[in-house]
């Protein structure tokens, strides 16, 4: 409606305009970038690890001294765990996805290859590994019981067969089936034949080998070996649905009981491992959401405060306008339009600040370019926020009686 006179009146109080504009601009910049980071973290955390996380837990033991026989200990524990009521499957493993600890190695396609083709996380499991992880076999087969060996300490050779993830298969053998192909976990040793491909299995480390591409976090290989690190052995157990916690208690008690010359490590559910693995990202998400909410609250309250002041300051003026024939709704519209203009000016500056901040994040923290949708969404949200915030004071303004005009002082 009457944009030009509102604008020229606004230009008479430049300082206030600059202050609110700056506030809106900074708010837009922070909110857009923070929301973008939040959504990226949420996306990161929502990725499927490829394993059954609801029913599984790990449990481990640390034996005492040089006399401890870890090999038989693993065999006994496996037999015990597999026979435990409520256990759907169990397998020894060196690590699990997201646990932030494990073994990785370079994979080559040719012997004596100078630099490896891809990095891969190694999961040492037995024939029940696939079932215990709850992974889905895409092609070929998993290991058979007779393929499983025990990896002696200090042994650096690799068994002749392996199962790899589809992501790794695509990287190593793009466009063809990996089953039957050969690769080298040790470029000076014997080759391994790929006997199967699993759909998906995340590596233990978040952000693993990020220079090898976005899929590198799913470059995993299974090795048909039971492995111990010193006297430390670890197992993965998958309980029947709904029985995890009960099985976990039973397994811990039984392991403590069966062999006294060791410490049984506290079992950890995969849910807990996931929560700890993503702790940093979850924390960042929560902190940023907190900042966004606080920021919007401060900005909205700031607008309410300023607008209230202006209404009070201009009471006489409002009365005069009413006396000159303004209806209540045109007074309301005046203040809403005024806020719309101020917000828009702030947003114009905000676009520059938003991309400035985004540029700073890209230059220093491997951030990505902010998609336009965030900017658009942020601008609309702030316009609405401004309108909502000014609505109260504007309504108050519209209730100023016209008789105020004839009041002296």
């Amino acid at each position, binding site marked *: 409606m009457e944009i030009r006179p509102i604008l020229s009146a606004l230009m008479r109080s430049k300082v206030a305009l600059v202050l609110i504009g700056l506030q809106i601009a900074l708010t837009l910049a922070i909110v857009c970038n923070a929301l973008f980071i939040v959504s990226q973290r949420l996306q990161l955390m929502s990725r499927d690890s490829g394993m059954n996380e609801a029913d599984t837990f790990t449990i481990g033991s640390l034996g005492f001294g040089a006399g401890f026989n870890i090999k038989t200990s693993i065999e006994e524990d496996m037999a015990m765990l597999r026979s435990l009521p409520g256990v759907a499957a169990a397998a020894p493993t060196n690590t699990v996805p997201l646990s932030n600890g494990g073994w990785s190695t370079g994979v080559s396609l040719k012997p004596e290859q100078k630099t490896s083709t891809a990095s891969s996380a190694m999961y040492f499991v037995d024939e029940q590994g696939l079932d215990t992880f709850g992974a889905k076999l895409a092609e070929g087969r998993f290991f058979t019981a007779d393929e499983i060996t025990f990896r002696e300490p200090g042994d650096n050779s690799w068994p002749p067969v392996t199962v790899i993830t589809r992501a790794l298969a695509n990287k190593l053998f793009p466009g063809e089936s990996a089953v039957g192909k050969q690769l080298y976990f040790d470029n000076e040793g014997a080759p391994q034949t790929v006997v199967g491909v699993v759909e998906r299995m995340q590596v233990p480390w978040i952000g693993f080998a990020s220079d090898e591409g976005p899929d590198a976090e799913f470059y995993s290989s299974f090795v048909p070996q039971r492995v111990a690190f010193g006297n430390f052995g670890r197992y993965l157990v998958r309980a029947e649905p709904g029985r995890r916690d009960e099985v976990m208690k039973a397994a811990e008690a039984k392991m403590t009981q069966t062999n006294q010359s060791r410490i049984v490590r506290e079992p950890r559910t995969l849910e807990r491992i996931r929560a700890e693995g993503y702790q940093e990202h979850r924390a960042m998400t929560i902190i940023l959401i907190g900042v966004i909410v*606080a920021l919007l609250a401060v900005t909205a309250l700031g607008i309410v*405060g300023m607008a209230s002041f202006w209404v009070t300051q201009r009471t006489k003026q409002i009365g005069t306008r009413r006396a000159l024939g303004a209806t209540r709704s045109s007074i309301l519209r005046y203040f809403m339009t005024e806020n719309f203009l101020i917000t828009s000016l702030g947003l114009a500056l905000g676009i520059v600040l938003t991309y400035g901040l985004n540029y700073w994040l890209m230059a220093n923290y491997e951030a990505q370019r902010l998609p336009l949708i965030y900017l658009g969404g942020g601008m609309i949200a702030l316009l609405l926020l401004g309108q909502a915030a000014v609505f109260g004071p504007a309504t108050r303004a519209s209730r100023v009686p016209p008789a105020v005009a004839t009041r002296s002082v």
Partner: protein
Amino acid sequence: MFTYYLQLGFHSLKRNPLLTALMIFGIALGIGTSMTSLSVFYLMGSDPIPWKSDKLHAVQLDNWSKEEPYRTPNEPPDQVTYLEAKALMEAGKADLQAAMYKVVWPLQPDNAEIKPFSSLGRATFKDFFAMFEPPFKYGNPWDAAQDNEHARVTVVSSALNEKLFGGQDSTGKKVRLNEIEYTIVGVLDKWQPRVKYYDLTNGAFNDSEEYYVPFTTAIELQTRPSGNNSCWESSKPGWDGYLASDCVWIQFWVQLNSQAREDEYMAFLNNYVNEQKKLGRFARPLNNRLPDVNEWIEAQGVVSGDAQIQVGLSFAFLIVCLVNTIGLLLAKFMRKSSEIGLRRALGATRGQLFTQHLVEAGVIGISGGLIGLVLTWLGLMAVRGLYADLYNVARLDWVMVLTAIGLSITAAVLAGLFPTWKACQITPAVQLKTQ
């Protein structure tokens, strides 16, 4: 006069309680947010041993593969091999030196009431104690002879001593680790560096160790490291093959008391690597480094990108809060312009009015700052809840408390300065004439 200004300030603030609350709340929120992130950031990155951080140096030698660096663009490994650890210890060219690695052993207490538990230790040399200066409560470090003899001796933490011996002087007593008995020679007092700078590879914010044993003893017992082990080629089979490999798994620290000593030591390292090159090792170009503690913390990225982003965003948030307060104060002071004009007419000087309004702004700032300090404390509690391993860095220390107070007063004065100046520009005549 000051009390009069204070009275006026409080009176004026009381007249608009909501608005006053809004301004104080704004400053408090801004201070709370920025101080929380700044505290974490500061304690993560701050010097953990300021009195000698420039004398302590991590040793980095580039024994990595000819084909690719340990880390791009051309970073040497952050740990050293056993071969180098042994050679450098034997050469003993630094003022103090210690190789070390992380071990996890089952600890089997004599006291049957305490169940065996897995415990964190560090295999190192006697110089560890002289270099990193953990305080001793009882006893002493072991000596050079015990390092040489692979003695079964240990220094235990105060927490372990508390747990096993109820905090008594336990020197001379035994502790059983992985079936081997060690004689306690020293008991530490409470010691928890905020950042575990001597082993950043295995977690910058991990707890400090429960015990320390001679490196030579752990090697004799064929103890593999519980921390990170990185290899660019497979080692030969067996324990001896592992020791002879190019795998890196040992942290190596030296103390060099002057720049001259540092130069000498670097020359020694370069010389050592060149000798090794003749033997067919160290295929990469000479790339030895001796970062001091702060350089090491920086190079190992202890202060996470997230923490930096949080500081950046929270200070931007503080600016928003300040701009908000400036706007509100300005509006408030301008509304009082007739009162200001009247006071001017009644003989107040510009300076007096300036002081009066600055006092009012200051009251807002200081209250905001104090509440902000409480919010900071709450914020740090929240950070501890969100990041389990930031327990040691998410705390308020005196530097941060003073910074917070300084920041809030500066912020408030800055926020109050412009509106105050603006208000004092009002000429008495104009204000009295209209209305």
